[in-house]
């Protein structure tokens, strides 16, 4: 790892080639990852701002900021933007794109041009989604349930066409990752020497490729229904609106795992690295990712326990749903056990990983409540469900995403952020998150239905508390935007391996050169061999003169 001399001579991927054109036409996975990151962060802040506005409106039952129709459009946009434009591409397309080839010791993904195409397809799809706001914002909810979506006067076609197009970018990324993982691993990296992040991305990619086409077909049928009146979902013409729900959840339930599996991959990396401990239960974690991916295709009906589907269908879906819970539980046990007898250092990525563990546990336990048939009948379509999926999607995926951002930030931009501000922010976000969403568990169990513009007076205290939480959460993200921007421009320079990690993205320069590694990489140690190899992270080197940051393996 004594590349210090070479560092000065070799320009990083950020420096060379120069010019805006070199970015827009790049086939470098790192640049594409950064471009994805910029795009999804933009939409994350748009979606987040919408959320804060919605919560402000819900502070009291009567009108504060907007009327019911505007509210309905806002919550639809919040959901659609967060799901389709932020969370689905967040970890795979942004972080995964940047990190996957580096972890494998590869120069790039298998199909670099397809990778760039996927970004443009994403932008193209996003334009349709944004255009729908101007054309008469959609008010159907992000699920586009028929017959509401076929009868409303808003611009459902533009939005669903946008989501249809976005699906292709997701398929492109998935396809690219599957081939990359199969073909471009460094010599010596067998399947079970891959970092668990790679397993997570692999399981995700399989779902992306297999499930997304179903969403595409469903949305095309919806568009045909509106434009041509084909009647497949229209009861007046012999169609069935519940069929739409089956089609939709056949994609959208596996999509939940598109969202969470790569997050679980990040958590495996961060916990092992910051515990400096061989990951406990590598194979169970790897297999459980594939297990979750497989079972996720067979549980869609648990979104429909009160839709009038048959009792036997409900029974089977409930039964299978619990089998998604078990592998997730196994992962949590393994992560916690990994910390046992480790050498734990609580830097920001680890703080987010610990937050993930707590929040994801709550998300998982409440998922069991929702999977239990008799209980789901009471809780379905209430704020309990809203709280549950925010605990899994935000408390789970977004916390993992933030852990990943803080973990790989030095590698991506070559600079460190303010550790103190980052930790303070993590605390603010943790408090704000629980204020916002834990109160919603109580609201939902008390009977508060979701997607209500107004509500009965007895729900006001908890709604008010939740809204205050949303403001705290909003402030947390604003602080994060500030310190990350500051780090980007004048953060302290980072060394090649700040955290003393053993995966191979840390074996190259920071930030990496255009072709990732200066010479071909060969696997010399496993990704979690902290019992055999130790690297002192250069993060701890506070004085630039200290040569410790080049300390090699013992």
């Amino acid at each position, binding site marked *: 790892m004594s590349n210090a001399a070479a560092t000065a001579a070799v320009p990083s991927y950020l420096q060379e080639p120069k010019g805006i054109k070199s970015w827009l036409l790049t086939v470098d996975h790192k640049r594409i990852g950064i471009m994805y990151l910029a795009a999804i962060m933009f939409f994350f802040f748009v979606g987040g701002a919408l959320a804060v506005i919605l919560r402000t409106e819900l502070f009291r039952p009567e009108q504060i900021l907007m009327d019911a129709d505007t509210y309905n459009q806002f919550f639809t946009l919040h959901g659609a933007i967060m799901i389709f434009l932020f969370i689905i591409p967040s970890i795979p397309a942004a972080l995964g794109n940047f990190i996957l080839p580096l972890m494998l010791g590869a120069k790039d993904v298998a199909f670099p041009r397809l990778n760039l195409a996927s970004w443009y397809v994403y932008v193209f799809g996003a334009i349709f989604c944004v255009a729908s706001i101007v054309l008469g914002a959609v008010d159907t909810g992000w699920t586009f349930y028929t017959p509401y979506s076929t009868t409303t006067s808003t611009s459902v076609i533009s939005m669903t066409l946008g989501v249809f197009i976005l699906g292709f970018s997701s398929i492109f990324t998935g396809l690219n990752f599957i081939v990359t993982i199969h073909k471009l691993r460094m010599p010596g990296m067998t399947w079970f020497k891959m970092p668990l992040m790679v397993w997570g991305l692999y399981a995700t990619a399989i779902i992306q490729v297999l499930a997304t086409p179903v969403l595409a077909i469903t949305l095309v049928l919806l568009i045909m229904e509106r434009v041509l009146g084909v009647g497949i979902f229209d009861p007046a013409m012999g169609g069935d609106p519940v069929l739409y729900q089956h089609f939709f959840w056949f994609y959208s339930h596996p999509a939940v795992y598109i969202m969470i599996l790569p997050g679980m991959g990040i958590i495996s990396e961060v916990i092992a690295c910051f515990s400096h401990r061989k990951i406990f239960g590598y194979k169970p974690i790897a297999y459980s990712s594939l297990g979750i991916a497989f079972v996720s295709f067979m549980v869609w009906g648990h979104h429909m326990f009160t839709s009038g589907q048959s009792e036997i269908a409900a029974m089977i879906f409930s039964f299978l749903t619990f089998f998604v819970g078990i592998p997730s539980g196994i992962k949590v046990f393994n992560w*916690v056990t990994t910390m046992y007898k480790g050498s734990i250092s609580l830097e920001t990525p680890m703080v987010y990983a610990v937050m993930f563990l707590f929040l994801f546990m709550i998300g998982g336990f409440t998922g069991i409540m929702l999977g239990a048939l008799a209980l789901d009948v009471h809780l379905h*379509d209430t704020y309990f469900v809203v709280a549950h999926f925010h605990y899994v999607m935000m408390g789970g995926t977004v916390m993992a995403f933030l852990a990943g951002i803080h973990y790989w930030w030095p590698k991506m931009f070559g600079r460190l952020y303010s550790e103190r501000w980052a930790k303070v922010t993590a605390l603010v976000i943790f408090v704000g998150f629980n204020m916002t969403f834990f109160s919603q568990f109580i609201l939902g169990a008390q009977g508060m239905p979701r997607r209500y513009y107004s509500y009965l007076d007895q729900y006001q205290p908890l709604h008010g508390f939740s809204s205050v939480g949303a403001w705290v959460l909003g402030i947390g993200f604003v602080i994060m935007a500030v310190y990350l921007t500051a780090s980007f421009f004048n953060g302290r320079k980072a060394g090649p391996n700040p955290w*003393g990690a053993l995966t191979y993205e840390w074996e190259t320069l920071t930030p990496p050169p255009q072709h990732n590694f200066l010479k071909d990489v060969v696997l010399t140690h496993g990704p979690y061999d902290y019992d055999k190899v130790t690297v002192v992270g250069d993060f701890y080197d506070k004085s630039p003169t200290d040569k410790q940051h080049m300390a090699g393996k013992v």
Partner: protein
Amino acid sequence: MDTTGTLFLPPQNSTIASEVDFLWDFIYWASAAFFVILGVAIIYFLIRYRRRRQGELTSGKSHNVPLEIAWTVIPTILIFFVFVWGFQGYLKMQIAPGDAMEVKVTGQKWFWSFQYEEGASTVNELVVPVDQPVKLLMSSTDVIHSFFVPNFRVKMDVLPNRYTHLWFEATSTGEYDLLCTEYCGTGHSEMIGTVRVLGEREFTEWLEQAGGMGEGMTPAEFGEQLYTSKACNTCHSLDGSKVVGPSFLNLYNKEQMLTTGQAVVADENYLRESILNPQAKLVAGYDPVMPSYQGVLKDQQVDALIAFIKSLQEQ
């Protein structure tokens, strides 16, 4: 019966509620136990195994078969119980008792309407008797809605192309919120009604009043409505054909042979007696299967039915 509610759950006001809440309590406390165990372990490890020295090697132990079996098998067993209890409770929610009173529910943007077999109809207020199973037959005239009464722990989507049903048995009188839980547009959050649970006598009185006694109709027209809504039509035809009971066609003033060998004329008094006490004078050739309508039909309704039967004379 819990009528105060807990931090999480509203009061229990139906027979199924305690069962649902038992499942809630089980999952809640089992989850809390796991959460505390894992949470304490995380915090303890963070402190106990904090990094004291840079560059130290750590344990390479990455497997422990008994431990891994334990944390796979124990949750699986617990979850299996949850599944079975959840399914049992769900089946009870699905299968209404045979003696359930039926009410037709219609959801539309953005109100609920209820039609009673007795002829009453209400909007946004479902009135039901306490301690009696009520089965709702539900449909929508536009988009999907969902019928939800938190205090009863019951919910079912209301669809435009098919009937769905839901039943409950209220255990205490009072007024309970009825909410629409499937997003249906502008007025979704205004689609709120009330379930008013009355004592048995109050309910009968209410139904009598609200049911209306054929106002605006001739007695014969009202009788025709009752012929269907009171299910006379399942056994008595209007075209002279013999079903379970004698046809109503040309019945009035007809001479009937009884099982006792006597002959009677089917006049007003005979018809009235046969409705309220069917087995008193049984017509020969028919089985004694008709239930008494004593207490089910009001005098005015009996009058209307007789008027209807009288109108069925072929010229």
